[in-house]
């Protein structure tokens, strides 16, 4: 089966448009008949990733490939990068500005949520150069979300 590939550009300027990639991805996955729970987990991962890219990355690229069993989501930005990835993975750890927090974002749950809902996750980052998050999700009916 030739995999399905979806590509998105995430606009770094606006919170109001963040979530568009996740909405479109969800629609595409529903229309090909992907498992409902897989779609839910993937949407959360993508949504959190989009928000992160707006807060920290100045926007970026998102891609999704799905072969019917395995889904890979790759989020790439050219933002300021993460100095301490281990800290960034802790629930509640956040470097978001007060402005962002006032909008209800930046609670330090983005990366932890992505890790929770993805089956595999790797974060690569270089300060000043940008961040790449790779997530793999499997269509597994046994998994309890």
């Amino acid at each position, binding site marked *: *089966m*030739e*995999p*399905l*590939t979806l590509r998105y550009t995430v606009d770094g300027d606006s919170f109001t448009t963040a979530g568009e990639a*996740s*909405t479109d991805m*969800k629609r*595409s996955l*529903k*229309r*090909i*008949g*992907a498992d*409902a729970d897989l779609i*839910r987990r993937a*949407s*959360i991962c993508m*949504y959190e990733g989009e928000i992160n890219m707006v807060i920290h990355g100045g926007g970026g690229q998102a891609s999704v490939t*799905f072969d*019917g069993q395995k889904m890979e989501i790759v989020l790439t930005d050219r933002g300021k990068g993460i100095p301490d990835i281990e800290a960034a993975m802790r629930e509640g750890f956040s470097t978001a500005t007060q402005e962002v927090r006032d909008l209800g974002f930046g609670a330090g749950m983005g990366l932890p949520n992505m890790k929770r809902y993805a089956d595999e996750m790797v974060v690569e980052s270089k300060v000043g150069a940008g961040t790449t998050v790779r997530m793999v999700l499997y269509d597994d009916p046994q998994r309890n979300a």
Partner: protein
Amino acid sequence: MMTHSVTLDNAKCTGCTACIKRCPTEAIRVRNGKAVILSEACVDCGECVRACPYHAKKVVCDAWERLAEFDYTIALPEPSLYGQFRNLDDAGAVLQGLLNLGFDEVYEVARAAEVLSDHARREIQLRAETPEGRAESLPVISSSCPACVRLILQRFPKLIGHIDTHLAPAELAAIRARADAVRKTGLSPDRIGVFFLTPCPAKATAAHHPVGLAGPVIDGALSMTEAYLRLLPAMKRADTLPSVTAGLMGIGWAVSGGEGKALLGERYISVDGIPNVISVLEDIEDGKLENIEFVEVGACTQGCLGGCLAVENPFVSKARIRALQKYMPVSQNRYEPRPGEIIRYAQPLEPMPGWQLNTDMAAAMAMHRQIGELAARLPGLDCSSCGAPRCRTLAEDVIRGEASERDCIFRLHQLRGEDGDSLPPPLRKAK
């Protein structure tokens, strides 16, 4: 086979594309110069009826002559009907008008609505107190708008567990009205004709083909527009008026927000208009609606007052409903289970597939890719000249084998140029 209550007057349709652009579920195409409804995508909302400048779209309702088929007839007026009349200070005038028109009895849908509000309050509490499956059943999604229920069955099968499994107010009203009349007249139930005055095609369809029930409980759906025209002269002859049997809560169901307000809590939202409903359903799917226990959804702007068979614009009728509610008791009907009475769906709701590109995932993925490739070749103007609402929908139709790439006038031009024909191509129908 799905049934619908919207039909096309072929002679009046000019193939102008007004309806295809306004259809919120992209369920209409212009093919061979006429608007064609795609049955599996249509939710019977009636937006096309409003959109058509030539009045070629019609709502199919039952004929009033059908009243003669029965020995005893009952009218079921919705509260939205009360908002249609100017200078109405007592909804009893509408009830009397219906009796003057020859109905033997009138049973207000608002009565049943108040009973259902009472049930819904218990339902929400029950679901909230059951930790198991809580996420799959809360927020409760209203089932009173059949267009929205159909939308969920088609596009949001994952949310079926959220749907309130109680019957719609008109259905409960029909069941109770018939049972009361059987007791009163001694007639057999099938000699009693129960007619609902519908504000929209979705409810007309639901009257004949209800979801969650083995068969119809309403004998016919009469057009609210026609009811209005017949009532105007009939109401003038009214002198003493029957009492209204519902309170401001039941009457409030006519307006978007009324069903939610009747729950007497704060944790609800009321959403009207299909595009808004779709976006909120997406949010529920994503678990983004926090602290909301009930979601009222209605296909029409302002709720049932905005139905395409309503006569008055919904903003005016909303003000009239508000005026009628003044000095009314809060509610006159409450939860009192009647033994053996059906008040919930008798059978589980089944998803309606059709939105999925193909039941075979590999085939669906291949189609998805081909659609994307073709869409990239189309101009992206969404001009609808091809008969599809957007370039993307044309691409889908082509890949499904229901249209041709040359239906796009721009592509036709290019493809003919590529074929070595430098003359501007004649305007003609593809295929």
